[in-house]
Each structure stands twice: as C-alpha cells, then as structure tokens.
C-alpha cells in the first residue's frame, strides 16, 4: 500500500502538485490520469523518488519514504518494479539477459542458476516461451512489452510503476498487456500504479482511478464510476474521443 498525504511540489512559483492525498491499495491496479500538464508525471516521479516533494509524505506500507535519505531508500527501491514507456529493453542483451539485469544489479548474492530460474519463471508468467536467447530486435512490440513486464517483476517487487504501458501498441495487444498487468498485480499482491492517457486502459483495468487537474487531485474512483462522475473536467477528459461519446450516448439511451 502507498499512502500519499498533502503532497506538494512546485517549480519556482508554479505549484505542480497541490496537496494531493490518496491511497493506492495493495493488489489493486491504480491509474493516474489527466491531461498533459496536469502533474501526472511529477506525481509519478515523486512516488518513485526521482523528484523530491516540497512537503507532504509518501508512505510505503509503514515506511515514510519522503523522510529517508538517498542511501536509506535503497531497500524500498529494491521493492519497486518499473515498466518504462516503449519497453526500453537493452538491444545488446538477449530477452533472458534483459530480465536478469535487475537481478544482477540488486541481488549480488543470488547464484547464476537462481537468477536464470527466476528469469525463466517471470518470462513464463508473461507467456514468453522459446525466445530467451533472441534479441529485442527479433521479437514483436507486444512481446517486447511482455519481456519488459517480466523484467519489472523479476525482483519480486511489492510496488509496480508503469509509465504509459500501452504506448505504441495496437488496441488488441494493448488490452492483453493491460490484462497481464492487472493479473500479475492481483496474483503477486503488488501495489501497481499506472500512468496513462488511454481510456481503454482505464475502462479495462481501472480498479482505482486518480484524475489530476492543474496539480489537484480532482476526482478519484473506479472505472465504472468515471463515466458518471458528474465532474465537468473529468467528463471533458473522458469524453474527448468520439468513441467515448458514443458509449456515453448509448448508456444514456439505454
């Protein structure tokens, strides 16, 4: 669980996060949505410790992350898995080596065999088979994304952060990836935070959705609730696409 209390961050005179309060529960897929410039990225960076908030606190379970110094944060960081936008696999490493990378960096005392077993387990879990020795350039975009998920969970993280996990994927593959993230979140009882623009993802896996607007936590709820939030800004964001407008109209007429 991640508890955020009064999180405030500004750049100069401009406040980017204005006392945000929320809780991301364990075993749930938590989505951060909002328009460009709403503060999503800054929020995510503050969560993973890449930016220091001006005030407020972030509690990882019982540990106050914001009160820790850089070195003291290492233990928490070891519990974080990260899924980058566009997979960000290392081109010169094979699929298997890519998954082993965080194990090599964080688990000096793990034997080579243990690392290999763990990598294979993770690859199996994301339904990647028989491509362990291929290079990223030799596999499809969807497979790359799944390998990236395998890499993100290699260290058995308690917290999983995903940045635009569907960018560059076709809608079908995007749905598969969304489902996979949701499944592993539940299966491994992780606290997953997804930063996304994609309303399909919101509808598919949004167990807890946080809508940011101009640095404020404007609205939060479930995917179902977002369609009937009654909040003008949220509706403006949700029904920005014609498809969503049709869904809205269909719901109203029915």
């Amino acid at each position: 669980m991640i508890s955020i209390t009064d999180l405030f961050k500004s750049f100069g005179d401009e406040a980017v996060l204005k006392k945000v309060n929320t809780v991301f529960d364990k075993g749930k897929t938590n989505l951060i949505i909002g328009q460009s410039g709403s503060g999503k990225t800054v929020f995510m960076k503050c969560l993973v410790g890449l930016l220091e908030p001006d005030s407020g606190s972030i509690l990882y379970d019982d540990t106050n992350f914001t009160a820790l110094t850089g070195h003291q944060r290492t233990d928490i960081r070891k519990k974080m898995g990260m899924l980058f936008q566009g997979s960000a696999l290392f081109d010169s490493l094979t699929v298997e080596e890519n998954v082993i990378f965080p194990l090599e960096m964080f688990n000096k005392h793990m034997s080579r065999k243990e690392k290999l077993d763990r990598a294979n387990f993770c690859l199996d879990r994301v339904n990647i088979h028989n491509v362990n020795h291929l290079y990223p350039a030799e596999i499809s975009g969807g497979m790359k994304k799944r390998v990236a998920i395998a890499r993100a969970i290699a260290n058995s993280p308690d917290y999983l952060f995903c940045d635009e996990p569907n960018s560059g994927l076709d809608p079908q593959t995007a749905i598969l990836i969304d489902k996979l993230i949701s499944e592993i979140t539940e299966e491994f009882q992780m606290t997953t935070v997804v930063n996304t623009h994609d309303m399909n993802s919101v509808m598919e896996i949004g167990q807890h959705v946080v809508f940011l607007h101009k640095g404020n936590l404007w609205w939060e709820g479930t995917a179902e609730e977002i369609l009937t939030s009654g909040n003008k800004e949220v509706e403006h964001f949700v029904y920005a696409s014609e498809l969503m407008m049709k869904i809205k109209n269909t719901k109203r007429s029915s």
Partner: protein
Amino acid sequence: MILFIRLFRESAMFAWTSLIANKLRTILTLLGITIGIFAIISVFSIVDALERQIRTSIASLGENTIYIQKWPWEFSADYAWWRYMNRPTPRISEMDDIMRRTNVLEAATFTAFTNRTVEYQNRSIDRVSIMAASHDYDKVRFFELESGRYFSPTESSAGRNVAILGAEIAENLFQDADPLLKNLKIFGRNIEVVGVFDREGEDTFGNSHDETVLLPVNFVNSFINVNSDRYNPAILARGKDIYSSDEITDELRGAMRSIRRIKPAADDDFSLNQASLLSTQFDGLFAIIKIAGWIIGGFSILVGGFGIANIMFVSVKERTTIIGIQKALGAKNYFILLQFLAEAVILSLMGGLLGLLLVFTGTWMASMAFDMNLLLSMSNIMRGVNVSVIIGLIAGILPAWSAAQLNPVDAIRANT
C-alpha cells in the same frame, strides 16, 4: 561481468554508430592522439636505434678498455687546456712497464696514427690512415680477417715490413686481385700484405678498419718516432673481466704515476679515457631528445584528449535515456562510469594504435630505404599503448563521471 561486457558492447555500438555518422569529427579527434603517439614513439624509436648503434660501437672499442693518452676525451668547464700541452705522450716502454707492474690487465697495446700515400703498382691512394700497433693489438681490439693472418710474434717484435689492409683499401688498390703476399709501398718502403680485415662499416665514432692499414709499431718506429705527439700515441689497456672498470682505472693510475714518478700531491700528467664515458655523455643528449619528443607529442595528445572528452560528452548526452534506464533498474554509478571510461579508453587506443601503425610503416620504410637498423620495439609499443590508455582515462573520466551522476529522472519519460 558478462552483463557488463554486453552492455559495454551496446554502448560501444552506439558510440561506433555515432563515430561513423560523424566521420570527419572522429578522424579529427583521433588525429591528435595519432600524431602525438606517432611523434613520441618515432623519437623513442630513433633514439633507441642510435643508442643501440652507440652501444655496439662501444662494445667494439671494448667496454673494459682504457685508453692511456695525453688528452682527455671530455673536458670539464674549468678546463685549462694549456696545462695539458706540456704533458708527455705515452711511450712504448711505458706499456711494457704497465704490464710488468699490474696484474689487472688481460692485454695492452701501443698505437700510433699517421696518414700516408699507399701505392701498389700504378695505383695509389692518398692520405690513408696508417696505424702502427704493438703485437697484442688483436687481444685489445676485436676484429675479423677476411683473408690472410695476423702478424706473427716475430714479425711484431722484429718490426718486419708486413701489413694488414682494411677492406676498402684492399678493394680500391687491388680491385679483383688477391692482395695477399703482394708488395705495397708506404713511407717509400716495400711492405708485404699478410692479411685483409673483414668489412666492418663505420660505427658511431667513425671507428673502422675499412680504410686503415695496420703495421707493426716496431717497423714504423724504425723510421719515424711513434712516441711523438703528432702521431697521437696511445696505450690501449684491456682489463680482465673479473675486475671492475674502477679497479682497473685505479690500478692503471697508480702504475702510471709510479712509472712517471709523479709526486703524491701533483696532478696526473696523463688521461685515462674510457668508452663508457662517451656513452654517459650520449645518455644526457638522448634524455634531452626524449624530453623534446614528449613535449612535441604531448601537445598533440593534449589536443586529442580534449577531442575525446568532447566526443564523450556528446555521447553521454545522446545516451541519457539508456543511462537513466540502467540506473532506474539498479545499475550503480560505478557501473555507468566504467562503461563510459572503457569507451573513452578504446577511442584513445584506436588513435594510439593508428599512430603506432604509422611508426611501424615509417621505421620499416626507413630501414629499407636508408639501411638503418630502425625498428618498433615491444617496449615502445607498450609505451604507446600505455600513453593512449592513460589519455583515454584522463579524457574520459569527466564525461563518465557526469554520466554516472546523471539523475534517472529522464528515463521514466524515455522515448525508446
């Protein structure tokens, strides 16, 4: 480790693509290192060749051989040359006395020089170097005979009219004919050729038997006074191998002072010259040349080093994303640092190896064209490699450090 190598390969491939895409920039950058290494290693190779040549020359003079002469080979700054003018020259009798009084010598010989015209039938050569030497000359100076023999003890002691010719003299005077047992005319006297020196070629000090005619000193002494200053007389004393050079010198100094009855407080009236003194003088000269090589090449390498640092900074900038991802996945600062350092070193090594290749080609061509014994030694190759590695490390440390200190903040929004 394997992972590091693989990731390093990725960095290297990235860098390589960047280098290939900017060929001119790469060539200009590496040129500094290449020219620098070329300059330094060329100077070292040339100095090595000269040193080798000098040491060979000294060895031919005899490393343990001391020349007892009127004049010293090196003069101190406060040298009062007029004091040497009145010194007596070494004499043949003194050589015999030395041999009687000391037991540190293997052999000693008395030599004197003059220039005379050498005639054979209707051919003649002017101003040939005539060397008169006592019998043990062959035990002090090492040489090979192409044909014939050395003087017999009787010929030397009796002062017989026999000669050994230098290869050049024999060739010019007799051309294709065999000079052995032919009669030459020197000093207006008939002299029988009993041997011909093997061709030696001139060494650094101009010492060679090629253009010399060797005669028994007792023969020459019968019509000119070989002890005279104008014939540059000298006693060449070769010490036994078991004694050090200092022991031999001390022994000879004592013997000469005793022979000449020099009072304890008085200065020597003779000079004890040694070939190794010459090499000491050359050591100083070579040290200066080497320093000059370092300075000339050093500036070029400095420019090359700046170029590499510049390329590395660009490289870090271009790879911010990948650095960030590695760090976000747990890569430690040293891991990133090593990757970029290794890249800078490899870049510098490429320049250095190119420089070494130029030196190798240059030395090979010079050896072929000018009959020089120039070669790129393993020690110079290692020197070039070491300098390249050190420059790579120095030039790469700052960019690598900046890469290692990068905040992975940008990685989260990576566009990969």
